[in-house]
């Protein structure tokens, strides 16, 4: 059965950072329609910081790596998404603790814990037009799959479909909630980031697996 080593997770994090950086302007534009127009700038800064902090760690375990990512999100990003992405990684740390190589169910546990953490923190459910609209289907699709390759692919597809589904929703959380009905017609930037994130992982996995 396939496993992932911590060093590989670092490469995965770099792949994510590259992807969100490439799409920074798109994410800013999406956020300009619904919020304050900074989502791309802050998300790319945070993932680049996470990748750099991780690269600087000396022989990190998977949970060290997840902790470093959490800290980068919390401290370098700030804002709503800093707290939420930070919580996502923070809650993933306990399931990973003491693991040297991650098998699929380890990863599943980390992602599920992260999802629950985000929902508890932000009080958003699917349909509220937030990142949860992409994250929940992605994590559940990953969990339902038999092995990594399939899991990442279906997670990426689920996230993208979830992100797209936010377009016609009114907003109920975050800055956008004050727009209410005026938010319809715009895709949520946080959900789009989740889609980019799983797409980057899928690409990284297929590119190397």
């Amino acid at each position: 059965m396939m496993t992932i080593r911590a060093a590989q997770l670092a490469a995965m994090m770099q792949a994510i950072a590259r992807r969100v950086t490439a799409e920074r302007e798109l994410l800013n534009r999406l956020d300009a329609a619904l919020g304050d127009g900074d989502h791309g700038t802050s998300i790319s800064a945070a993932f680049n910081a996470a990748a750099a902090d991780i690269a600087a760690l000396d022989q990190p375990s998977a949970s060290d790596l997840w902790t470093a990512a959490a800290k980068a999100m919390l401290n370098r990003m700030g804002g709503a998404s800093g707290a939420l992405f930070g919580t996502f990684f923070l809650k993933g740390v306990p399931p990973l603790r003491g693991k040297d190589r991650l098998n699929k169910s380890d990863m599943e546990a980390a992602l599920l814990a992260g999802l629950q953490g985000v929902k508890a923190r932000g009080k958003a459910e699917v349909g509220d037009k937030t990142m949860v609209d992409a994250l929940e289907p992605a994590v559940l699709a990953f969990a339902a799959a038999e092995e990594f390759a399939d899991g990442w692919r279906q997670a990426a597809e689920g996230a993208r479909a979830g992100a797209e589904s936010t377009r016609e929703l009114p907003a109920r959380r975050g800055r956008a909630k004050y727009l209410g009905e005026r938010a319809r017609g715009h895709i949520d930037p946080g959900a789009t980031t989740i889609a980019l994130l799983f797409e980057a992982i899928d690409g990284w996995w297929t590119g190397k697996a």
Partner: protein
Amino acid sequence: MSARKHKLINKPDNIVDEMLDGFCAAYSHIVRRAGDRLVLRAQPKAAGKVGLVMGGGSGHEPAMLGWIGPGLLDVNIVGDIFTAPGPERILAGIRAADRGAGALLCVSHHEGDRLNAELALEFCQAEGIDDVDMVILYDDISSAPKSRESDRRGTAGLFFVWKMLGAFCEGDADLAAAKALAQKVRDNTRSLAMSLSSCASPVTGEVMFELNEGDMEIGMGLHGEIGRGRQQALSADATIDLMLPPILADLPFQAGDEVLVLLNNSGSLTLMELFILYRRVAFKLREVGIRVYKSWIGPYATTLETAGFALSLCRVDEQLKALWDAPANGAYMKQL
């Protein structure tokens, strides 16, 4: 109308740090910089008094930097532009504010600020810091209906909280009393903003939203978030006649009430315009028998160079009036 895009900055990445360098250098007799973007009083308040901590994004200057000082707040944790600082930095701020009587974390209600504040309080718990509490503050009537006040955003009207809570915590109040006072001021405050123009982010270089010359947006957020309604821009009097009634109806403010009034410049409105607007506010309040105790007109909580303003009213009683008149010496809020 196109927003001004050339900003007098150096590198976009350095804006906040360079701004803090400049601010703290200019006002070194009032503030000092510490740690990771904390702004503290140059001389901390006496031991045994509740510390007041406020985190928030930048782009609202002089808020909150300008309100650190005697009679005002103790610590400001400075975030990126329009971005709440993260929980570890808030924790550092709480530590710095504690003078032995605990610290009150004041949160201007926005998703990012609230989420990071909650995380910071969990971090406090985990570290065994227990004489800390948090109060969520809001005032913007455009952001949720009357029955859902606690969903509303924090905007310029929180100025009233900062001033009176600051004065209150120069005294012997404990943490619970401080929190109750903050809630009292909040629950007597209502605000509504409007704008004639958007602003351009100095980081992305993009305008926050498009607003045609000759249009106005009512219910702007403090970060240039678009509001609830757009319409043709009106005269000064007509604008006040549109904005004041919903504010009055919301609390409601009534004949016989005494109020403080804030006309907050969102950025690039002229004082000339604000005085003309205030004239109408004063006239209309007199008409309905509401007495103005004192007023402030100027740039307090800005949204970069937005051309707009917020109108805020706070109903006061004898306690609040005395707190309002107590001395204060922040770089941008002085009361003799």
